[in-house]
């Protein structure tokens, strides 16, 4: 979720810059950020679900083994 906030902040900066100079590049960069966020979210949530199923908790500190 914090990654989403940060990506949105950078996207807002891109949009503002693109709007300031009147170029479409800022919006295109935001589209790429959007695609990247979608891929990242799908992988991350799948990993969280798997971790919850295996460890029965959501504490990140519990994930201290490479092969549990």
């Amino acid at each position: 979720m914090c990654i989403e906030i940060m990506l949105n902040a950078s996207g807002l900066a891109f949009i503002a810059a693109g709007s300031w100079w009147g170029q479409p590049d800022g919006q295109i960069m935001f589209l790429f950020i959007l695609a990247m966020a979608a891929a990242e979210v799908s992988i991350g949530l799948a990993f969280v679900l798997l971790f919850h199923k295996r460890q029965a908790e959501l504490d990140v500190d519990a994930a201290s083994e490479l092969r549990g």
Partner: protein
Amino acid sequence: MVTIFYLAGTLAVIATLLAITQRHAVHALLYLIVSLLAVAVDFYALGATFVAALEIMIYAGAIMVLFVFVVMMLNVAEHAMEVEREWLKPRNWVGPSVLSLILLGELAYCTATFGSTPSLANAVGPKQVGVALFGTYWIGVELASLLLMAGLVGAFHLGRHAFAKEERQHAADTDTALPDSGGDFVHTGSRGTSRAA
């Protein structure tokens, strides 16, 4: 339009701060959705209407709903009813409601004055974006499609093992559960007859 921009920006900052400081995951998600909507209003005020629509549809509509879905799925508790009754107290939903109502007012204002107010800066239309996206940046589009494909394959790979394990577990459970339920049924039946007698 300048007023709308700054109002929505302030709303976005407030909602994001609340999303970070909230202790409950669902509350934080609700504030984050409000923050995304406010950022979308900012995009609209900046003249990027196409990206504002995409922000609402993909970010607030798809990604955040995915988040909410997973959080709800992981939050299955025994005392879910009491927890939900606790969540429905006004203290919990009045914050996002106020922020969303301000956004709704901005939306109504934009709809009422559509076309008459100039945008904040020089606007970039969807046509320009499309021409540049599939002209200059076509390699980026291809790379994004590769990235999405990799994400799809990765998510499927992560989910496949869990699903296969669950299937095996389910099969084992039903094998052991069948005689149990049968015995329970006979037991309750005999108890019912004895009570009737």
